């Protein structure tokens, strides 16, 4: 560390000296190479592609709206009549119209899929299960968060640090992922979902239920 500082000082001193005798500085060889600046690429906020590729995505209508609003110059560049003519390039008219049909089909499919996903989301249930391990020990299992696009690993981490306990993502016997937290924190988890703490956003509280899973008492 100390050595490096000294070196910096020396180069500074050298630079200062060079400043006074410019002519000799020129003979001291080329300046240190500079990094080449990166190309700034704009990405579509709708489909994440560079806008020139939006035409191949499944959200062209929305992409075009976005581009027209935010970058009208680029919109002209990509979607004016001349641009549309030019870009067909070496593709035959037949192939181009097939491409357009495919894109329209893809878009309709994606829309239908999004609709279905939304419906499914609104109807999917989250269960918070309080599981009795033995008389005084419980674990809390949360199932169904992934339907709301919540990263289970991140959510488990958040629960672990919030409750200062262990939390992990495991597969339940049905083979579905769920979060298991050590200790009974079911009420607190429900509260966090209601208050949308951290990454637990966008879950309607009506879809969440707490269930008990008690060990059967041995019959005596």
């Amino acid at each position, binding site marked *: 560390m100390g050595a490096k500082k000294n070196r910096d000082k020396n180069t500074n001193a050298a630079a200062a000296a060079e400043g006074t005798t410019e002519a000799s500085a020129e003979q001291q060889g080329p300046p*240190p*190479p*500079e*990094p*080449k600046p*990166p*190309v700034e*690429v704009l990405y579509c906020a709708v*489909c*994440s*592609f*560079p806008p*020139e*590729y939006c035409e*191949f*995505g499944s959200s062209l209508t929305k992409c075009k709206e976005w581009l027209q609003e935010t970058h009208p110059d680029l919109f002209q560049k990509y979607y004016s009549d001349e641009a549309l003519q*030019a*870009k*067909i*390039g*070496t*593709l035959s008219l037949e*192939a181009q119209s097939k*491409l357009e049909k*495919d894109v329209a089909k893809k878009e309709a499919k994606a829309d239908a899929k999004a609709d279905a996903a939304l419906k499914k989301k609104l109807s999917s249930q989250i269960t918070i299960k309080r599981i009795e391990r033995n008389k005084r020990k419980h674990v809390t299992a949360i199932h169904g968060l992934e339907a709301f696009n919540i990263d*289970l*690993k991140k959510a488990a981490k958040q629960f672990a640090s919030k409750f200062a306990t262990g939390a992990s*993502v495991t597969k339940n016997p049905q083979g579905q*992922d769920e979060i298991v937290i050590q200790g009974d924190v079911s009420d607190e988890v429900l509260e966090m979902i209601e208050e949308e703490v951290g990454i637990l956003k966008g879950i309607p509280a009506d879809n969440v239920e707490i269930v008990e899973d008690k060990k059967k008492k041995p019959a005596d």
Partner: protein
Amino acid sequence: MFKKFSTSTDIAGQTPVKSSVQRSLRAAVLAQWKIEPETLDVIWPKKEGLVHVKCREHISIYTVHGEPIFFQHFDGPIYPTLRVLHKYPYILPLVRIDRGAIRFLLAGAHMMCPGLTSAGGYLPPSEEALAADTPVAIHAEGKEHAVGVGISKMSSEEMRKVNKGVGVETVTYLGDDLWALQTI
């Protein structure tokens, strides 16, 4: 390679890369890509820790601050991610596919020779001929930015001569699961 890739099932673990290994990786990148050391330092600063993300089927992704920078299959060639290639397009030799081939590439297909040798396509001229098994930037007719990263399966001269079968294997492309993965 990344048509279907999910962080929850395809990643085995993440480990910081030892500095001695980082040095040899840096040397390998400098040898394989057309990039100046000082520009590579901007993409991958020497002081920042490189993280090795171990994935299924011996795929390794390397990240800086969680952002994938390059990846490798076994100890094969080192490929930049498409986002890095967009920023520094000259680091790999360029091939171009014609407009008709774009939608196949975006569905994950490998690139057939005719899509590269047709009027809308491009292969380097014979004096700069491409050898087989070279990582390439895949560009597309009428487009400014690369649409994918691939590897040549035969030399560019052979592609012209044979003009059938797969010329360039697609490794990663716009919209695949690696593209979707902005940070790990």
